[in-house]
């Protein structure tokens, strides 16, 4: 008998926002119960609004409208939204780079305008805005000094971080000679220099190749494992899905959705069955059962993500360098043939 690994996931029915909030609150109440002095809330925005004005004080854009979110200790929180939705504005307000037009931001129970909150914050800006005339080592040493770290501690931390982001070979080169990915790594290292409790990442995976972006996601997860809080904003939806516990979706400066990723993505009225090596007879039987129940059903081989494929190929080629046998030519004709094949097989299955 083939080994059947059947997993059937069924979601709770989620209808209204209120239930989401209620539910996520209960989920986080459990986390907060882990005994943290910060009462579990790391970032809190209250009725936070931002209006950009021109030189004469005339209103230009209402970038953020009464945002209320709470980020709790230990979670990875994602801010999602199209360009101009207010995610960057929110992050800048949290960091004190912008001042709210009304409302408040509290970070570690301190006002965002207070400098002392920065002791526990690490921030990776959208693009790595670093001093191009410094080398990687000098950059990290400089940021270490800004935290008043002692010489020995700074030296150790810098070499740790350079190793973490894999720049040992390039640490004496000026950043102007770096590629975009390398600069990004230095940017990440500087955000972690103070071993922060809260890490804010503005578009962490943009500009990174798939390997880099995978590493970034792994790092975010490892930060989470260390009990750190991560707030990231992105429009790489796949990334957000991979790492975030909760997301807030913004559009035109307004909060449109807030909740646990797993819950939000659940499709309520569709059931998914994962099995391995299903014989055609069994397949037909299942279909028949479902049709008898009055439902419709499609049966297909799942596709892997492009990311998995890419990473597999790279890993394989690193293990066994040389030319790799290409599985298809990728021409449109061949694609058409492939499509036909699947249609046929589906047709057969349908009969």
């Amino acid at each position: 008998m083939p080994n059947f690994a059947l997993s059937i996931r069924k979601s709770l029915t989620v209808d209204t926002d209120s239930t989401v909030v209620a539910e996520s609150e209960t989920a986080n109440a459990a986390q907060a119960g882990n005994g943290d002095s910060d009462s579990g809330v790391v970032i809190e925005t209250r009725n936070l609004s931002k209006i950009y004005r021109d030189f004469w004080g005339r209103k230009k854009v209402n970038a953020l409208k009464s945002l209320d979110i709470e980020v709790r200790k230990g979670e990875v929180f994602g801010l999602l939204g199209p360009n101009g939705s207010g995610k960057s504005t929110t992050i800048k307000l949290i960091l004190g780079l912008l001042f709210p037009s009304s409302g408040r931001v509290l970070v570690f129970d301190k006002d965002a305008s207070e400098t002392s909150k920065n002791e526990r914050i690490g921030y990776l800006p959208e693009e790595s805005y670093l001093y191009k005339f410094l080398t990687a080592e000098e950059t990290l040493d400089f940021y270490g000094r800004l935290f008043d770290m002692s010489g020995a501690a700074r030296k150790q931390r810098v070499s740790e971080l350079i190793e973490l982001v894999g720049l040992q070979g390039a640490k004496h080169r000026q950043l102007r000679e770096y590629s975009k990915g390398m600069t990004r790594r230095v940017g990440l290292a500087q955000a972690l220099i103070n071993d922060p409790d809260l890490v804010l990442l503005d578009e962490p995976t943009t500009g990174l190749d798939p390997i880099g972006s995978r590493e970034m996601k792994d790092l975010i997860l490892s930060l989470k494992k260390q009990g750190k809080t991560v707030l990231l904003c992105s429009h790489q939806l796949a990334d957000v899905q991979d790492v975030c516990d909760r997301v807030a979706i913004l559009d035109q400066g307004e909060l449109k959705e807030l909740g646990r990723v797993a819950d939000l993505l659940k499709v309520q009225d569709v059931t998914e069955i994962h099995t391995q090596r299903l014989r055609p007879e069994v397949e037909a039987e299942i279909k028949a059962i479902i049709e008898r129940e009055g439902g419709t059903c499609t049966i297909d081989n799942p596709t892997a993500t492009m990311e998995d494929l890419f990473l597999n190929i790279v890993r394989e080629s690193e293990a066994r360098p040389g030319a790799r046998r290409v599985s298809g030519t990728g021409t449109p004709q061949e694609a058409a043939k492939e499509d036909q094949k699947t249609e046929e097989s589906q047709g057969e299955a349908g009969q």
Partner: protein
Amino acid sequence: MILQPEDFWSFYEWLMRPESFLESAFLQGIVLFVLAIVIGLMVGYIISANRYGPGEGFYAVARAVRDLIRFDLPGTSAHRVFALAKLAFKEAIRRRVLFVVFLFVGLLLLAGWYLNPESSDPARLYISFVLTATNYLILALALFISAFSLPNDIKSRTIYTIVTKPVRATEIVLGRMLGFMAVGTVMLVPMGMFSYLFVSRGLNHQHSEVVDVVEEADGTLVGETDFVQDHKHSFTLYSDIDAEGNALGTYSGLTDVVRGHRHIVRRDADGNFEILSPEPLRARIPSYGEIQFYDRGGNNKDAGVDIGAERLDAGGYGSAGISRVIGLSRGSRKIQHGYVEGGTLGKAEFTFQNVTPERYPNGLQLDLSLRAYRSYKGDIESGIRGSVTMKHPTKDIESNPKTFVINEYEVDELNLETDVQGTDNNKTRDLNVFEDLVDENGQLLVIIKCLDRSQYLGVTQSGVYLRAGDNPFWWNLTKAYVSIWLQMAMVIAFGVMFSTFLSGPVAMVATFACVLLGFSAEQVYDTRHFIDSGIERGGGPIESMVRLLRQDAMTTQLDVDTTAAKVIKTTDAGIVYSLDAIATALPNLPKMVGTAEYAASGFDIFGALLLRHAAATLGYCLLAFIISYFFLKSREIAA
């Protein structure tokens, strides 16, 4: 160089002005700080009331002030300031600002093209050239690096990674200022060394031969040197004698002063001449006295004879501090030469303090920079003669007059011997200067007269002084460089201040405008003086424009109808008074640039003068620091 009364002030006199506190630098500083605070609070309130509403705006301002005093000043960490200063320093260095040093060296190498080798005083030319070149290069550089750095960081958003660290606004401002000052220092040191080499090597030369040596009847040798570097010297050598007065067969003496220098010449027993290198450059340390004029009848006067419209032209109130701005300081304060009429009882009497044998072990060296004014041509070949008499301040004891011929535009160096002939209550006897002529307080009177009838001799207080000693040239050059450093610090502080709220180019223009207005402060004071005193000197900006268009002379009555004239003059007065107030609030840079003039003229730069500049610089840097703090703190970095 005519020193003005304010140049003689000691540091304390400058700071406090014991007799007229209104003119004191201290009061000026306090008023400036108070004004800055009041205006700052008002502007701050208006801006934040606009942003948050009247009530909340008040709290925002109060919070900003509280933050500075309670958190940001005490929380400022030397480590972070150092890190930021180091960053600013590295930035400048890696942007290759040291190129300016090479530019400077290049300028020195090509200096021969535009420095006149036939100048009568090459030392002055060389020194003022190197100092001026350094001064302007460094100020321009300070202007650029300070005005562009912070706006660049904001534009390129590198500032985001700084302000999201526990860095305070105080540290950012202080770090920049100190970092750029370090850059300037690193550049000034090699520039100073190259300048020293350029001046000392450039002036060094060797005369190798003597010509036309004749033995005079009194046993001295008179001759001339060879012609090197467009000049030659004549010399007189005296026979060297041992303690018993026997001739040793060797001769030694000095050449005359040509082009500001002279050589020591020796002749050994074999008849070989040796001409040493020119005497090293000196920085005279003057000991100035109080001056008192007497008119032709022997009555004391506040000033000497005015031989032309010198006093009228002098203009200007000088830096009279607050008292000028509020209109309490009247009349010209500028000093020009006062003249003494020849062949009469007219004289100029100087009272010198602290005349002791310890201070003047080799006799009194009296330096004279005088002017001559002829009311008739006379014998144009021979100069006008004057005399110097030393006198006891209270008793009727005086030395016999020593005569000299006035050498205009050069410093006459008179050696007053300590043992002289003189009169004691009309009895002739030998006098010792220190015992008989100096009183118990160390005071000595020196009286200068003009001997030619109806000719005039012009003196100023700074023109006649006792030379207590010389400082080495390198030390004086160092002091001149310190003065340049102070100006640079001031420009950097202003540049950083403006760059906290303006974009790079605008910050640079604003700083430049401040420097420019600071430089023309004296002209603004003068214009105000002429307007206040009703002297026609072209008037304010609008009046000048009208005169230019009408092609009218400066000194005529403004030729427009009464109403128009009234409007023009009132507007002008408003403009000039406001400019005056602003110029008074700004650092008086020309005074500081003027210290280079001391070094060029071979005068030691007084410690008090440097100390005054240093105090003023510190005050302005502090003010700029506080203003920068508030601007940076209240600025939305990401906006």
